[in-house]
């Protein structure tokens, strides 16, 4: 039978661990205790480039409570192939300001922190360059962009098509450095048992990559490394890869011979846990008078660090969103003395769609065609890049449903001081899955246990896995227990790339289907499943699978001050089958909320003279607060996409943010006639133009 015939999937089931969380009983990484623990603080470089010549460990060791001081001359050697971000204190080189170049272990956190601050470090400073520019001399074309797409694509003759187009939009859009600010900062507790067995309690989006990183850095048998992470307070991508806190905790514990805890501070999150690269994006659209795109070009400039290449796939969204016979995309990177960028909710799609969907709005204005109609006219039959058919593609449905529900389109108006306008943008995000394994067990007491090394980072993954299992087994939800967040469980995809539920669910369905015929026999009985060989869904023909959506936004702009307040947001999404109406709605709303922050508030400020991010806490780095966020209305279209997984579901964790910033920017333009092409859109940028 198809999972779709059952009814628990899709129901607005409360989070299974909700009570534990609101009563404070749910334990997060830093709350785990170990006897005789030492507290470890990473010490940040205060120069943006150069060498660490000497660290005055002797003086620090005399401070009360200090147990050990580590730096490159004293830190244990890690395996030579350790990821450069994780290879802390392995060389004297300083690649960016804020890089952990030493560490202090002490009896208390306060003692470690104070000693870390007092630690005397002598540097040999070198020239540095931290500022990205559109024509930076160091720009180069990376071989691929995250997670493995080609950097450049080209079809047809873009230049000729632009030269012949009736209307051309040629604009440059900029997005700033943005940082993930999950409620729970990264933290790790590491406990060694002898020299070859390690247990860590860690805050991450996947226990397996953490286990792998530790095993290879310390040359351990992966079977002897256990990572435990049952509850995680958000990640948005910043916990999708192991961060230096994981290595530091294990390293310090090894050196000191005691369990060691590392808490990354909010300030340190701005240096060592990744961020979204700033982008400079030139978008060129050519169109006929009746609004058919003849050319699309999207050329991106962004940055990475001296340590490691991370190339955000910013223009990838432009490869598949609209039809046009002539198309070109490119990415160029500069290596700078900056922290290494990494994943932040919808890497690629999010900044890329801001530029593309702003440009589409500009084109609609230039052609005097409704922006929804313009998008409908350029809806492709097949994936424009690959020529594959889409598994399901309901962008037009989302736009039409949203237009109906939102009341598209009221003309801009004035309400006292407030200039009121509305905007729309399209969203898309790939629907993929990765091989995962799961175990399903039936016990004699009538209960069932699902084991899978999945991660619940606050999304409701645990609950959704239980729903999937209960439906597949045709039993009540209460009889299903889910174990996740432990590397001893069957390996599974991380909570990333909107692939978690899709990947885990496929393995859970397979295990439960295997278990059902055996329920009549002796209990307990256990069935193991692996989707390695069937990953990719229904393999009839190659298809392109993506979720789609549309965000509609109404803003008021204060005509005195340029203050923008969002008064209405509505999103409609087509993302396959929705697994849990309650937690899914929260995911969409959360993505949109983060998009409002991106549009109007979020910006990490770099002082290029020092190579320093100068705002690095929640007072200085503005994320949207409740007062910035109106009631957000979310709807979805009924869809079942059999190509991605047996549940018919596509990922929903990221698509909410994708088009939101463009929808806000388009609404501001509608209200004021002003187009700000550099996020965030603040009073500083708007006031003098109104």
């Amino acid at each position: 039978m198809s999972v779709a015939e059952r009814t628990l999937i899709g129901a607005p089931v409360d989070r299974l661990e909700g009570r534990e969380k609101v009563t404070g009983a749910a334990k997060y990484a830093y709350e785990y205790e170990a006897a005789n623990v030492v507290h470890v603080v990473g010490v940040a470089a205060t120069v943006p480039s150069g060498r660490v010549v000497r660290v005055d460990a002797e003086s620090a060791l005399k401070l009360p409570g200090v147990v050990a001081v580590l730096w490159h001359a004293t830190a244990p050697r890690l395996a030579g192939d350790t990821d450069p971000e994780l290879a802390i204190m392995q060389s004297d080189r300083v690649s960016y300001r804020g890089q952990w170049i030493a560490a202090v272990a002490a009896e208390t956190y306060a003692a470690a922190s104070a000693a870390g601050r007092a630690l005397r470090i002598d540097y040999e400073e070198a020239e540095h360059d931290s500022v990205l520019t559109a024509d930076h001399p160091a720009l180069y074309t990376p071989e691929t962009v995250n997670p493995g797409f080609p950097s450049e694509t080209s079809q047809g003759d873009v230049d000729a098509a632009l030269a012949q187009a009736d209307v051309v939009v040629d604009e440059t859009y900029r997005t700033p450095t943005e940082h993930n600010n999950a409620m729970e900062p990264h933290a790790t507790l590491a406990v060694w048992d002898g020299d070859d067995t390690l247990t860590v309690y860690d805050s991450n989006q996947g226990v397996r990559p953490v286990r792998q990183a530790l095993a290879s850095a310390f040359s351990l048998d992966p079977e002897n490394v256990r990572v435990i992470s049952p509850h995680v307070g958000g990640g948005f991508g910043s916990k999708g890869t192991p961060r230096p806190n994981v290595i530091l905790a294990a390293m310090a514990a090894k050196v000191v011979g005691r369990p060691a805890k590392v808490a990354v501070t909010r300030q340190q999150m701005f240096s060592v846990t990744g961020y979204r690269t700033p982008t400079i994006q030139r978008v060129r659209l050519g169109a006929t008078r009746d609004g058919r795109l003849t050319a699309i070009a999207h050329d991106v400039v962004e940055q990475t660090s001296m340590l490691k290449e991370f190339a955000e796939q910013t223009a990838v969204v432009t490869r598949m969103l609209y039809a046009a016979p002539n198309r070109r995309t490119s990415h160029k990177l500069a290596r700078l003395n900056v922290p290494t960028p990494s994943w932040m909710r919808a890497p690629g799609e999010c900044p890329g769609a801001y530029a593309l969907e702003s440009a589409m709005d500009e084109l609609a204005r230039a052609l005097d065609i409704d922006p929804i109609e313009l998008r409908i006219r350029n809806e492709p039959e097949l994936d424009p890049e690959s020529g594959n058919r889409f598994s399901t593609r309901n962008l037009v449905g989302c736009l039409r449903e949203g237009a109906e529900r939102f009341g598209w389109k009221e003309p801009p108006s004035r309400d006292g001081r407030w200039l009121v306008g509305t905007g729309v943008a399209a969203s898309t995000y790939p629907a993929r899955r990765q091989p995962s394994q799961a175990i399903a067990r039936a016990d004699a007491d009538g209960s069932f246990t699902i084991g899978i090394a999945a991660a619940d980072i606050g999304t409701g993954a645990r609950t959704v896995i239980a729903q999937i299992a209960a439906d597949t087994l045709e039993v009540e939800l209460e009889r299903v227990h889910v174990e996740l967040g432990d590397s001893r469980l069957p390996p599974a995809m991380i909570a990333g790339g909107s692939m978690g539920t899709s990947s885990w669910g496929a393995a859970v369905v397979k295990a439960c289907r295997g278990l059902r015929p055996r329920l009549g026999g002796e209990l307990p009985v256990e069935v193991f499943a692996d989707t390695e060989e069937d990953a990719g869904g229904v393999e009839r023909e190659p298809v392109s699978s993506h979720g789609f959506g549309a965000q509609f936004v109404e803003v008021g702009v204060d005509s005195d001050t340029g203050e923008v307040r969002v008064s209405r947001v509505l999103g409609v999404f087509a993302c396959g089958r929705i697994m849990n109406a309650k937690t899914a709605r929260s995911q969409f709303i959360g993505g949109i909320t983060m998009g409002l922050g991106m549009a109007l508030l979020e910006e990490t400020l770099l002082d290029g003279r020092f190579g320093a991010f100068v705002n690095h806490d929640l007072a200085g780095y503005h994320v949207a607060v409740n007062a910035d966020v109106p009631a957000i209305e979310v709807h979805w279209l009924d869809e079942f996409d059999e190509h991605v997984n047996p549940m018919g579901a596509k990922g929903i964790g990221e698509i909410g943010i994708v088009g939101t910033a463009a929808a806000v920017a388009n609404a501001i333009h509608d209200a004021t006639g002003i187009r700000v092409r550099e996020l965030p859109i603040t009073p500083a940028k708007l006031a003098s133009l109104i």
Partner: protein
Amino acid sequence: MREFAYERASGVSAAVAAAEQGATFLGGGTNLVDLMKLGVAKPERLVDVSRLPADIEELPDGGLRIGAAVRNNDLAADPRVRLTYPALSHALLAGASGQLRNLATTGGNLLQRTRCHYFMVSTLPCNKRAPGSGCPAREGIHDNHAILGWSEACVATHPSDMSVALAALDATVVTHARRIPLVDLHRLPGSEPERDTILEPGELIVAVELPPAHGRSTYRKVRDRASFAFALVSVAAVLRVEDGAVADVAVALGGVAHKPWRASRLESELRGGPATRASYEAAADAELAEARPLRDNAYKVEIAKRAIATVLEELS
């Protein structure tokens, strides 16, 4: 760890005695404790004055005396303040968050330090934090810095909302030793940006006094984020209009200078003149004529002018 001594003052004289021996006054701690964590403030001894008497009393002349330890939320919610000095209530409620306002005191709010990024990053230069080290903000990141009264040494602004309202309301600061008009409490940075106020070492603010209200008042805060953000520009205004003419006016600006900026030029232009948007705009132009915006904050001049005119129009 960096140790410090803590004591709770039993009374004003005990607090002053402790301060004379080097202790730093601690109010609600909502700013000082943060600065201690950041390594920006390094007091060796704290004397907690947040438990000193915290009353709001009516004065014989019809004014109000606010104890220095009155918490921001208590002050904002006081019916006499809400009715008679709405600018003060609005300003308080526009500041910080509910949780912070529950802790923050009246005296402490006056003595907040700037939120200039460079001041709070202890590994970067800052003349206010480390005199003589330089001011990176002047040529650096200064979107939300001063446009009035800054010096080569410092372009920081005073972050308090409450102080701006008090400046427009002609408040007086009462210390254990003297009375200071609020507009004279804070200073311009000059060559000593490390000194925010004219208070002598060990001088304790014990109360703030408000004269009887002499017009309608309000407070307008312009900011990026709708809550929990410091002002880009704020305007506190008191206005009394008689027969279409400005009988009395007081305007103070926040977010534009190292101190709450009392707009005296604007006031003298307006007094006795017509109570119209055009005259408000002209007076705002006159006040802002002396503005010297930095590379990236000229927008504040425009916002200030428009916000002043709109606020006065609303009070007309």
